[in-house]
C-alpha cells in the first residue's frame, strides 16, 4: 500500500533509479560493515575466553565437593589444611586473605585521602608536578619488587622489633599497604577533582572555612568515588599473590596473632600448585581456593557497580 503511495505520479523507471542509488554499497558502507564485523569478532573472542575461564575454574573448583564429596561447610570453616591426608579446611587462608586485605585498606585509606586532599585542595601545583609522577611510578612497579623489598627490609625489621621470624600478617599488611596506596590515592584524586568547583565556591561564600569546605562539601560529594577507590585497592590486595607470598610465611594454619606465619588464598595457590597432580583431591582443593578468589572479585566488581549506581541516584534525585 505504502509503495503505491510513494510511486504516485512517477514513472517506474525513475523510482527504480532512485531505489538503486539509495541501496547500492559504497566504500563507506563497506567500511562500516567491515568495522562492525571486526569489533564483533573481537568481542566474541573475549567473551569466549572469559566464559571458558569461568567454566574451567568453576568446574574444577566444584570437583572438590562433587567428586571428592567434601562438604562446602567443612571447606569454608575447617581449620586443618592437609590435602594429602584428606583434610581441606580453607578457613586459615580465607581469614588470612581478609585480614591482610582489610588491614591494608584500613591503614592505606587515611593516607590516601590525606594525600589526595593535599594534591587537589592544598597544593595543587606541587601535587601535579611532584606527587602525580611519584604515584604513577609506584603503580607501575612490579609486585615482585615490592615483595623483595618486603623480604629484605620489612621482615628483618619486624623480626627486630617484635621478635619471631618476622614473617606474618603484619609484614604482609605493610607490603600491601604500600602497594594499594597509589591505587587508592590516584582514584581518590580523580574523584575529588570531579567535584564541581562551584560547590567549593558556594561553601566559601557562606563563610565556611577551608577545612569545613573540604570535610563537609568536597569529601561528602566525592564519597562514592572514594569508596570505589578503596574497593579497587581491596580487590588488588585480595588478589595479590607474589609479594604476599614472599613475606607472610606461608603456614596454612589459623593465624593466632599478627606476627606469626600465616597464608592467604593466593599465597597458598602459588606455592602449592606445582606440587599436586591433576584430578586428585589436593589439586581440586587448590582449584576451590581459586574459585573463592573468583567469586570475591566478582563480588568486588558488583560492589563497585552498586556504589556507582547509588552515587548517580543521589545526584539525580
Amino acid at each position, binding site marked *: 500500500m505504502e509503495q503505491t503511495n510513494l510511486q504516485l505520479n512517477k514513472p517506474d523507471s525513475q523510482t527504480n533509479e532512485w531505489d538503486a542509488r539509495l541501496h547500492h554499497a559504497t566504500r563507506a558502507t563497506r567500511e562500516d560493515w567491515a568495522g562492525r564485523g571486526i569489533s564483533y569478532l573481537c568481542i566474541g573472542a573475549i567473551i569466549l575466553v572469559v566464559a571458558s575461564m569461568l567454566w574451567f575454574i568453576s568446574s574444577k573448583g566444584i570437583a572438590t565437593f562433587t567428586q571428592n564429596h567434601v562438604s562446602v561447610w567443612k571447606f569454608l570453616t575447617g581449620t586443618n589444611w592437609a590435602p594429602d591426608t584428606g583434610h581441606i579446611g580453607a578457613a586459615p587462608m580465607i581469614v588470612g586473605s581478609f585480614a591482610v586485605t582489610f588491614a591494608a585498606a584500613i591503614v592505606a585509606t587515611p593516607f590516601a585521602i590525606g594525600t589526595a586532599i593535599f594534591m587537589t585542595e592544598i597544593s595543587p601545583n606541587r601535587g601535579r608536578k611532584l606527587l602525580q609522577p611519584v604515584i604513577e611510578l609506584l603503580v607501575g612497579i612490579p609486585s615482585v619488587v615490592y615483595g623483595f623489598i618486603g623480604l629484605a627490609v620489612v621482615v628483618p625489621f619486624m623480626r627486630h622489633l617484635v621478635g619471631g621470624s618476622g614473617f606474618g600478617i603484619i609484614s604482609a599488611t605493610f607490603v600491601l599497604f604500600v602497594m594499594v596506596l597509589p591505587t587508592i590515592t590516584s582514584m581518590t584524586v580523580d574523584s575529588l577533582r570531579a567535584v*564541581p568547583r*562551584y*560547590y567549593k*565556591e*558556594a*561553601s*566559601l*561564600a*557562606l*563563610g*565556611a*572555612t577551608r577545612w*569545613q569546605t573540604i570535610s*563537609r*562539601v568536597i569529601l*561528602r*560529594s566525592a564519597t562514592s568515588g572514594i569508596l570505589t577507590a578503596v574497593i579497587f585497592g581491596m580487590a588488588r590486595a585480595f588478589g595479590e599473590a607474589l609479594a604476599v607470598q614472599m613475606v607472610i610465611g606461608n603456614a596454612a594454619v589459623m593465624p593466632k596473632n599478627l606476627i606469626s606465619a600465616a597464608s592467604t588464598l593466593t599465597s597458598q595457590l602459588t606455592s602449592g600448585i606445582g606440587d599436586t597432580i591433576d584430578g586428585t583431591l589436593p589439586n581440586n582443593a587448590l582449584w576451590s581456593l581459586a574459585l573463592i578468589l573468583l567469586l570475591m572479585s566478582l563480588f568486588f566488581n558488583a560492589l563497585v557497580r552498586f556504589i556507582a549506581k547509588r552515587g548517580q541516584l*543521589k*545526584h*539525580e*534525585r
Partner: protein
Amino acid sequence: MLKQYSFEKTAVQSFDAQTTLALKTEDLQVFYGANHAMHDANLGFPKNQITALIGASGSGKSTYLRSLNRMNDGIATVTGKIWYHGVNINEPNVNIYEIRKHIGMVFQRPNPFSKSIRENIVYALKANGMKSKADLDERVETSLRGAALWDEVKDTLDKSALSLSGGQQQRLCIARSIAMAPDVLLLDEPCSALDPISTVKVEETLLELQKQYTIIIVTHNMQQAARVSSQCAFFHLGHVMEYTSTGTMFSNPQIPVTQDYIAGSFG
C-alpha cells in the same frame, strides 16, 4: 572597530554625610597577574538600597563584586580599601570567614549542594556552631520565607535541592545566604539562567529583601536594573565610568560611553 572612549571623563557620584553607606571602596584595583582588570573603583553603597552594576561582558563587574567579600583571595591581587563598618576589610589580617558571614554572595549559576533543601540552609549555620534543632528549624523557615520559597517547598524540605527547578534553586541559594543573617548581599547575574517568571519572583524577593539588606546586583538586563535598583554603576573595560541614581542613568546619562551603552549603539 570598537569606538574609543576616554577614561578621563567619568561621572561617579559620591554621597554626603547624611547617607549611611553599608560598604564603600576606595581606589580598588584588581590584577589577574599582569592583567589589570579593575582600575580605581570608588563606589559607595547606600544602606538598604539595591545598587545595580551594569556593563558589557568582560568589563570587570564580577571581578569587582567578588573582591567585596574577598572571594578573589588566592585568585587575584586586590589593592585599595574596602570600608565596612569603619574597617578596611581589604587587609591581610582581617578574618575572611567572618567577612563572608556578613557579606553574602549568590552566583550566576544556581549552585545548591547535592544535599536536601534543609541541609543546604543549615550547612553554614552548623559550620558556624549553631546546634539547637529549634533554632535551625526557625532559620530554615524564616530564610525560605525571605526568599519567597517557603510555600513551594515547606512539605518537601528533605528532598534533594537538585530536584528543584532552576528558579527555585536560585531562590534557595538566596535563602541559604540570608540564613546567615548577613547585612550585605552580593548577587552576580542571579537571573541569567532563569525564565521570565522565575526572574520576576527573584526580583520581587530582592525588592522585599532591601528593607533588611543592602543589595549589590550585577545584571546584563537593563530592564531588570531599572526595575529593581535605586543606584546604578556602569563599568567599561575595567573602569567605573558612571555612577548615579538609576533614574538618571536611564533617562539622562552624563557621558558619551554610557549614553551609547544605554542607547544600544555601543562600539
